[in-house]
């Protein structure tokens, strides 16, 4: 990919290079990364965690009845996710509110931070989103069986369909159930990766004097779109988590 760009136009466009995981303090290149090596992943995840803590702990330290600006942002996020769970999964779902809130705030903050130039997009990595999705998948499945026992399998038995069709539908339902974590994780990682790769491509073209105005305008336009995508993808990931949670709590169709 990079070789092709170099040979065709002499442009140095490496849209995927920004996603490289590398150690912050050197030494990792030669003998590979240990799992505890401090990398740019560590740095940007830590920044995300610190930002969320600043918003939710320091922003709300006044516990004001009439909130400050930061506190009202935290309250807005709280109400947003709280209402989402209550509307979709019902009151029983509120037990899992802290985890859903953690996932939502982590993803939305990481997505927004990745829009800072020269930053690292942690949520563009399938390893990260895959773990997030698998955590949801595994916990939802466990919750489903613990809460409903074998009745949880009723999720796959579409009682609304004609009896003859039900076995086939059950096969389809089981397949779609196991595809959930794949689509759940790739949707987020793919969106983030594609947006950032496009930024990089336009930025590479900006080196050519003739195209550079166009490419700079395009980057500005893309940036507004990516701001939207950053929020929407976090929202989609969270709402799907809650929908899956609803399936575990109420497996009846």
């Amino acid at each position, binding site marked *: 990919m990079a070789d092709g760009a170099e040979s065709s136009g002499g442009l140095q466009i490496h849209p*995927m290079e920004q996603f490289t995981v590398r150690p912050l303090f050197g030494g990792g290149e030669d003998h590979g990364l240990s799992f505890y090596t401090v990398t740019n992943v560590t740095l940007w995840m830590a920044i995300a965690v610190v930002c969320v803590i600043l918003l*939710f702990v320091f922003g709300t330290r006044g516990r004001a009845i009439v909130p400050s600006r930061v506190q009202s942002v935290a309250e807005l996020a709280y109400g947003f996710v709280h209402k989402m769970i209550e509307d979709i999964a019902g009151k029983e779902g509120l037990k899992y509110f802290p985890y859903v809130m953690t996932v939502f705030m982590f993803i939305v903050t990481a997505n927004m931070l990745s829009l800072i130039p020269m930053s690292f997009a942690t949520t563009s990595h399938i390893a990260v989103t895959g773990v997030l999705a698998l955590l949801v998948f595994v916990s939802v499945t466990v919750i489903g069986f613990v809460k409903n026992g074998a009745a949880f399998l009723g999720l796959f038995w579409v009682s609304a369909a004609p009896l003859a069709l039900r076995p086939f539908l059950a096969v389809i339902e089981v397949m779609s159930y196991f595809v959930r974590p794949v689509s759940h994780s790739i949707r987020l990682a793919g969106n983030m990766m594609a947006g950032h790769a496009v930024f990089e491509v336009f930025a590479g073209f900006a080196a050519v004097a003739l195209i550079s105005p166009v490419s700079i305008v395009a980057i500005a336009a893309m940036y507004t779109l990516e701001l939207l995508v950053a929020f929407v993808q976090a929202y989609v990931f969270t709402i799907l988590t809650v929908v899956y949670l609803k399936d575990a709590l109420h497996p009846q169709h």
Partner: protein
Amino acid sequence: MATEAIEAGAHAAGESGSAGMPQLDFSTFANQIFWLLLALVALWWVMSRIALPRIGSVLAERSGTITNDLAAAEELSLKVKEAEAAYTKALAEARVEANRIVGEARDAIKADLAEATARADAEIAEKTAESEKQIAAIRASAAGSISEVAKATATEIVAILGAEADAKTVEALVDARVKG
């Protein structure tokens, strides 16, 4: 530095054989997953222990305050209604009282007026009667004077004419004439 990094990325990509996608470089997975789990646990701990209970209590407190304020407002508006009702009642009572007083005054005035009128009528009737009596007396005396004058005149005329006037006859004649 940058070229080194690119080389490293290319190297890593070459290793995993994934045409330059660092996302598919499995040698970084353990690292990413480790840090992700650490970040999630840290964030989850802060959220569930500190942030969410705090915001929840603030929101509950706020809705409590709002409910209390609304109840107080409701109470005050009830009081306002009560006060208004009392005011209206007092106004109506005052109006009735005023009407009653006006009626009483009117009745008293009417009674006074009737009494005065009756007294005045009586006086007028008395005076009329007196006047009529006087007039009658005057008329009677006048009629008496006329007949006296007429008798005297008739006696004189008869005497002038040379006849012996019988006083009784003349009187009877004159009386008959005056009456007739």
